[in-house]
């Protein structure tokens, strides 16, 4: 076995030292009636070569970047990853290290964590960041729990209808059974009318949850929504797209109290949706309610600057049933990747990416909407993704035809929004070239013609 050391000879020596006759004897604690007594029904072992061939076969059954051009978004994005991110993050000293509970031998990870927190604070315009959470969706749920505990209001939250539908499903799972009222404010025009939010926020409301740019790609009026929330002593939780912040105002500058994000697009691949990176930052006064690990600066016995995990008295391993959350991990490796990515991009790289996304997506939107069959569903401004309406109301065929032609053209919206069953969400990142965009538009045009001829 490739990863086991003990030879039969060594096993005998060790058993002699233990004073046991056999390995079997070591399991005597387990009553016979509680033992399996047969081999597990699993496939036989594969050597590395066979396993490599097997995985290659499975990979070939998927259609990856070599097969299709990706215009899919909705929370998972095909952004560019500089080679240095993989090269550094795949070093075993990062990859195979443990949670930094022994700071003297974990300063690399701790400093990287501290730098991550620093970068996230700068990115969001907020005072403190934790060392990350599971993903963007569960981070929203944690932000809501944090709001409820901070404001001592557990009965009601207000959520915009333009928040990612899967994020809203997660909120339903977390809070529905606990009796929390989740008021969803509809966004028929693609963004919310702040007056409609003002009408439902009251002094029972723990927080208002907004995503901006929202699921449809459009910025919401975050400042106005923050003012509405604050007027009733509620908090504003904003989910943001980290790669929009090269060009768009930061959550902290718009009045958000807690900012959360899906951070995978900062240097991590799409990997079929996970593992991802839950970003969370907040105002300083809420730090002791913040879930997850936090790294802090201090000095060692010789007065040297160093880093440790801190404020751990909030956490489950100390407070047990009184902890502010049950989270006992972070996404260390992905937080590291995000830090390296941001360090490489710098302000101007981030700005370039933002501008390319904005310009390329607008070019694509204009070209698609110039086709007879399609129009933009909403007139609201957008950042890198937009909603296309198929005037012939046959989104399934449009997407299937485009896929056959080599394009994942967009995400059908009917699954989550019955009123948008004739619409799909198109995303254009900085990676998409004009040739690819023109190819998509041409394919959609052919779809138009083909359907017309069939008619």
């Amino acid at each position, binding site marked *: 076995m490739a*990863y*086991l050391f003990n030879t039969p000879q060594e096993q005998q020596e060790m058993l002699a*030292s233990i004073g046991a006759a056999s390995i079997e004897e070591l399991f005597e*604690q*387990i009553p016979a009636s*509680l033992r399996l007594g047969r081999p597990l029904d*699993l496939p*036989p*072992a*594969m050597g590395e070569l066979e396993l490599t061939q097997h*995985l290659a076969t499975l*990979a070939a*059954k*998927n*259609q*990856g970047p*070599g097969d299709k051009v990706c215009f899919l978004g909705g929370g998972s994005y*095909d952004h560019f990853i500089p080679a240095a991110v993989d*090269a550094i993050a795949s070093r*075993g*000293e990062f*990859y195979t*290290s*443990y949670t930094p509970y022994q700071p*003297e*031998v974990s*300063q*690399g990870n701790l400093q990287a964590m*501290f*730098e991550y927190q620093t970068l996230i604070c*700068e990115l969001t315009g907020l005072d403190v960041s934790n060392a990350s959470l*599971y993903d963007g969706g569960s981070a929203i749920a944690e932000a809501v729990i944090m709001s409820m505990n901070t404001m001592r209001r557990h009965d009601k939250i207000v959520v915009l209808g333009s928040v990612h539908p*899967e994020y809203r499903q*997660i909120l339903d799972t977390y809070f529905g059974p606990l009796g929390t009222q989740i008021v969803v404010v509809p966004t028929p025009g693609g963004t919310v009318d702040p007056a409609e939010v003002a009408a439902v926020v009251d002094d029972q409301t723990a927080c208002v949850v907004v995503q901006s740019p929202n699921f449809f790609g459009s910025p919401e009026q975050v400042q106005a929504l923050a003012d509405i929330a604050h007027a009733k002593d509620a908090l504003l939780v904003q989910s943001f797209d980290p790669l929009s912040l090269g060009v768009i105002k930061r959550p902290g500058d718009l009045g958000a109290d807690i900012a959360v994000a899906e951070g995978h697009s900062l240097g991590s691949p799409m*990997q*079929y949706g*996970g593992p991802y990176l839950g970003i969370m930052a907040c105002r300083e006064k809420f*730090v002791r309610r913040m879930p997850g690990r*936090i790294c802090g600066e*201090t000095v*060692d016995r*010789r007065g*040297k600057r*160093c880093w*440790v995990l801190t*404020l751990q008295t909030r956490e489950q391993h100390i407070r*047990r049933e009184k902890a502010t959350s*049950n*989270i006992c*991990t*972070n996404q260390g490796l992905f937080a590291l990747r995000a830090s390296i990515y941001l360090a490489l991009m*710098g*302000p101007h*790289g981030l700005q370039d990416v*933002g501008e390319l996304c904005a*310009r*390329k997506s607008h*070019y694509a939107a204009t070209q698609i909407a110039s086709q007879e069959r399609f129009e933009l569903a909403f007139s609201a401004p957008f950042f890198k993704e937009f909603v296309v309406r198929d005037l012939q109301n046959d989104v399934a065929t449009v*997407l299937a035809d485009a896929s056959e032609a080599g394009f994942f053209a967009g995400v059908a919206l009917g699954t989550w929004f019955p009123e948008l069953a004739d619409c799909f969400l198109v995303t254009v990142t900085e990676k998409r070239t*004009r040739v690819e965009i023109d190819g998509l538009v041409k394919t959609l045009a052919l779809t138009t013609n083909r359907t017309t001829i069939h008619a």
Partner: protein
Amino acid sequence: MRNTRSTHLLTELSQPGRRAVVMPPCDVPETPLNELLPADVLAESPPALPELAEPEVVRHYTNLSTLNMSVDTHYYPLGSCTMKYNPKRNERLASLPGIVDLHPYQPEDSLQGILQLLYELQQFLTEISGLPAISLQPAAGAHGEWTALMSAAAYFRSIGQEQRKLVLSPDSSHGTNPASAQMAGFTAVTVRTVDGAVDMDDLRSKLNDQVAVFMITNPSTLGLFETQMAEIADAVHAAGGLIYLDGANMNAVLGISRPGDIGADMMHYNPHKTFSGPHGGGGPGAGPICVAEKIAPFLPSPMVVKEGDQYRLDYDRPESIGRVRTFFGNVGVLVRAYCYILSYGPDGLKAVSENAVLNANYLLSKVKHFLPVPHGLRCMHEFVASAAKLKQEKGVTAMDIAKRLLDYGFHAPTVYFPLTVPEAMMIEPTETESKEMLDSFVEILFRITEEPADLLHDAPHTTPISRPNEVQAARQPCLRAVCG
């Protein structure tokens, strides 16, 4: 010979005008941004991130990495955390373009390979657990605990027993158990243990029609198999409750004993422990849960199903608690677990546990001569030694020993857990260490117990930093480069 400049912060290394990444020129019309987005949305300038050239970023992080201990460089006898070798093949295979570059909303016919992998993993994990239904969605062990407890709550609602609001767990349990119970809307109640085993009288006195779930870690946090397991399961089930098994210690029982066969109704795996996913300095892990048939309808949505030769995601699950995470879960971690299970096969997995238990008992047989092991002459894959006597005699604590081990190039064991053992040192060798390594660890551990107390109080002496002032870190928090 250390590069001390590398420990400067990025903000301290930054020079205005430096660039590491230059994006390609825009190949579509360069419309001014204020014609695309309204002025009140646009930032006046991008966030003030550090400005660095690529070589400096690479050198900075590469040097930082050398300040860490890791499984690739050091031995980690870390109890309950199962820091075993992370096979390199798994990293390469999980990074194949046809695995790693997939978008979660691709059409299902373009995802047949990954869906097949996930479906087969579901089969493997249910076989290993002896529980028939599974959700791969939870993002971490504690997330799995919470998800299972939410599913249990839904189950009790469905049978009209929503009065069951109590979750019991032993005083030796992981802190996540009571915390997850509280997060799921239950009240956590502690059950006493005696010599590491559940106090049956205390358990019985707390069982009634208000109890929903008894959460137990088996093998326990003392590294002992709970021999009363059948009795516990009978008592809890007779009271109408469910058994949740914290699967943190599955490394000891692969192919030997299955949670489903010993009375558990629900459990989670920690794939990063049991199936060797790298710890990543604190994540990501994953927290798949397996449950009994009667809980199956309530598991999160979606799950992978097979119809004929086709695999698809099933969202049509009317009694499901819903979604607990975006998309499908921590797929990258699950791919590594799949590769690990296939690398070993049924006999190999059993050999993993046999060698983990052999190594642990071998260490126990050596360590007990100079550090008492209060519970058990034998153990499963880990054991808990106590430095209480040493503390009494010489004033040397478990933490002192832990810190001194760092000087000798060993990571420290888990200390001060479980809370039921004074000056606890929880040692887990894992199966991927050699007898020579274990022998040298024992030799050093013994030598440390003979060293002068003063030397130990000041340890570590050779690490990049000495003991940090943790009180200052918490009293005057500085959580970013420019402290508020």
